[in-house]
């Protein structure tokens, strides 16, 4: 069934899958956001234990989604993989370090004789929350702001210097965080992750003092989120973008490119606006309630996050746009057409993608079966497994 599809359709299909994984990843970074709040919301040992354990049941999903996002990007758009990872070396390495220390932190944190002490593992979680969100946000922002790289496949025939993808700057990715726009998106993702973390705590924890503090923190994080997000989006829509001539493949700058993309793809516009509204609505339902408060904010804001980020990925890659632009030489920019895998590989992978609904179904089922009760101090003291 996929064999018959033209390669352009398969490329679009895979851009949608990669975008979906990316947007689910941003939603799941509520784990990272929550990690940065364990000292702010947890003042006693027990409170911190509750916070860490409520996140501890979900962290592997974020982690697995990140790894799958990387694998899927590699399989479907290998030229991005070889250009960005090998070029923006320091940004990716810093992100990886942040996730390495996270992976042991939960399991080792409260174990006796853990060498580094509980505090260190808690700081691992905080560092992961800080770097993971800000740097991934900044890296995604380069999809709109561009990077300095060149690609020349003929290099392969030079036996003395055969590398195809080259970073044309000395900083190898560090320059990305010197661009205020990239930092703004990084910080927007950081505060959004904290908002989602708070909403998640409100949804899963039954402990009054934590919840009171959480509500206060929700307001304090929503303000900077809105500032950074709106600043980023306004500049994005007002700025030039990287447009591709569908006939020749030539890349050039177009004023208001991403705003045009939004107008020319009404479905994406609807997703974007709906997403932003849902994020705000989820926050609002928790902030503006006085008696019986909703705890479902995470689902509203979470869905909103997925839609918004998905729409941003659509703006970056569809409608004749270069999703990974080169500011060194526009003609070296990556598009979903010039960076994808072959028709055969995309077809094979498309069959594999049919497993995804099945995966989501069993995740849903398994979670429901162990998460039917809110976390409270009593459960932490029982003899079950805890972090």
């Amino acid at each position, binding site marked *: 069934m996929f064999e018959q599809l033209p390669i352009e359709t398969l490329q679009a299909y895979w851009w949608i899958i990669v975008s979906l994984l990316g947007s689910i990843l941003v939603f799941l970074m509520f784990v990272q956001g929550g990690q940065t709040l364990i000292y702010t919301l947890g003042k006693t040992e027990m409170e911190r234990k509750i916070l860490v354990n409520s996140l501890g049941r979900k962290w592997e999903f974020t982690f697995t989604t990140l790894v799958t996002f990387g694998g899927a990007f590699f399989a479907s758009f290998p030229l991005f993989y070889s250009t960005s990872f090998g070029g923006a070396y320091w940004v990716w390495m810093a992100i990886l370090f942040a996730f390495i220390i996270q992976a042991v932190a939960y399991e080792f944190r409260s174990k006796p004789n853990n*060498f580094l002490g509980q505090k260190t593992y808690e700081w691992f979680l905080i560092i992961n929350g800080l770097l993971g969100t800000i740097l991934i946000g900044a890296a995604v922002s380069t999809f709109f702001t561009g990077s300095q790289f060149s690609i020349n496949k003929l290099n392969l025939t030079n036996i003395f210097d055969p590398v195809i993808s080259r970073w044309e700057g000395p900083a190898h990715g560090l320059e990305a965080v010197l661009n205020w726009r990239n930092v703004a998106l990084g910080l927007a993702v950081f505060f959004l992750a904290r908002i989602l973390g708070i909403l998640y705590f409100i949804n899963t924890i039954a402990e009054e003092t934590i919840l009171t503090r959480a509500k206060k923190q929700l307001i304090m994080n929503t303000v900077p989120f809105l500032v950074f997000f709106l600043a980023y989006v306004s500049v994005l829509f007002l700025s030039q973008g990287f447009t591709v001539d569908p006939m020749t493949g030539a890349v050039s700058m177009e004023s208001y490119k991403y705003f045009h993309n939004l107008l020319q793809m009404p479905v994406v516009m609807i997703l974007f606006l709906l997403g932003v509204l849902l994020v705000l609505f989820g926050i609002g339902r928790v902030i503006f309630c006085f008696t019986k408060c909703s705890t479902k904010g995470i689902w509203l804001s979470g869905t909103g996050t997925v839609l918004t980020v998905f729409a941003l990925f659509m703006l970056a890659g569809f409608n004749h746009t270069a999703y990974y632009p080169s500011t060194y030489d526009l003609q070296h920019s990556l598009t979903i057409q010039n960076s994808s895998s072959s028709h055969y590989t995309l077809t094979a992978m498309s069959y*594999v993608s049919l497993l995804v609904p099945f995966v989501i179904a069993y995740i849903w089922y398994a979670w429901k079966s162990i998460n039917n009760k809110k976390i409270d101090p009593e459960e932490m003291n029982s003899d*079950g497994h805890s972090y």
Partner: protein
Amino acid sequence: MIESIDLSLVDWSRAQFALTAIYHWLFVPLTLGLSVLVAIMESIYVKTGNPEWKKITKFWMTLFGINFAIGVATGIILEFEFGTNWSNYSWFVGDIFGAPLAIEGIMAFFLESTFIAVMFFGWNKVSKGFHLASSWLTAIGANLSALWILVANAWMQNPVGMKFNPETTRNEMTNFWDVLFSPVAVNKFLHTISSGYVLAAIFVLGVSAWFLIKKRDTQFAVKSIFVASVFGLITSLLLAFTGDGSAYQVTQKQPMKLAAMEGLYHGKTGAGLVAIGLLDPSKKTGDGKEAFIFKVEFPKLLSFLGYRSPDAFVPGVEDILNGGYKPEYNSIPESEKEVALSAEQKIIRGRLALSALSTYKQAKNDHNAARADSAENLLRQHYAYFGYAYLNNVESIVPNVPLTFYSFHVMVILGLYFILLFIVVLIYINTHRLEKSRWLLWLSIFTIPLAYIASEAGWIVAEMGRQPWVIQDLLPTMAAVSRIDASAVQITFWLFAVVFTVLLIAEVMIMVKQIKIGPKNGGTR
């Protein structure tokens, strides 16, 4: 002669990959094997209803969790390292290599991470049956993950199911099933997972032996030892069997690796298999000196194992360098067997292929279809030697012989010893002598590090033995790296070295503490 390829960059990039892979492999085999052992123990619990088995299951599950966490931590870097440090590789073969990595994520990691949560947090929340199913699904997830990553690795040793596309300047997949079911992949998968099973069995055996020495929790220890030894004996036989299959594949597909594994410089008919031997450290390729100071060998066994014929000719390092012999690979019919090329001839053909690619690109630019066609033909004719084009001397196709030789022999000797150990332990259990035989208990404890050594040695054979290739014959390491400063890789190398070492110390300390706490408390905190 070399202007731009920074050799120290290649070396540091290799060192970093080796470091991260070796660390990762300290934790993976235990995850592979212990997940299955835990599932078996829980199955016994569900079948018998005996709470003792629940206690046993929970104890080993706790150790599994500690090990699993650090396995995950050391694993994430490997996937992304293909991009960060081996950028040219990622493009050159990404069309084939990316797929198994993505499938691993979709098929295996989610299975593992979903059901591991049920395993740890579900004891009092889900039914016995669902919990048991979750334990098995975690084990299946871990082993499926191994399947896909080993398919990817096997493909690097034996690139099949693909075709080079000069238009896109990369290799493209043409047959997914050839990649998945290549005999190298099948053997590698079975050999590697059974090595994990054996390691986990030895781990359970050794740790339980410690309880018997301390005269603590003897019921728990004897039961654990019994399961581990039966499982260990079966899987160590499978390990030997698939080891033979793997070496057979190496003989057919990577003759240079085989020559290095055996320290065979001069090929011969009816070659013997070295049982033990000491290589002369001053031996150089082509110096005519005897390679061994001393060796004991089984006559004709290498020819028999490698070619299934006791009188087959096994080429040595120098034969492969100089060519001129007739390979006896069983996979090729007699009529098609050509005289082997020398390394020099292969380099010439590789360069022809490379310049044909260059001509092709030029012709395409000039819209000269006829010239492009003839260039493509020339490229296809010599593509099998494409990677040789990047080599600047013939001897660079020789891997580190002593390292490969010793790693291989350490692995094989230890593998045979493990079979013997399981047999002896089972006999002692059957005759009720195990608890009193302190020597055997101590031996079991000291076998734990040996299992890790054997397991890592296996990977050293596989990966060092294939040098200089990243993709056998098609891409050497020096043409696969990213273009970054060697100093950048040095910094990340040392960062990884420090972080992983610290985490390893933490893991071992936590593990030892949990073992001392013992199964009485279910191992939980």
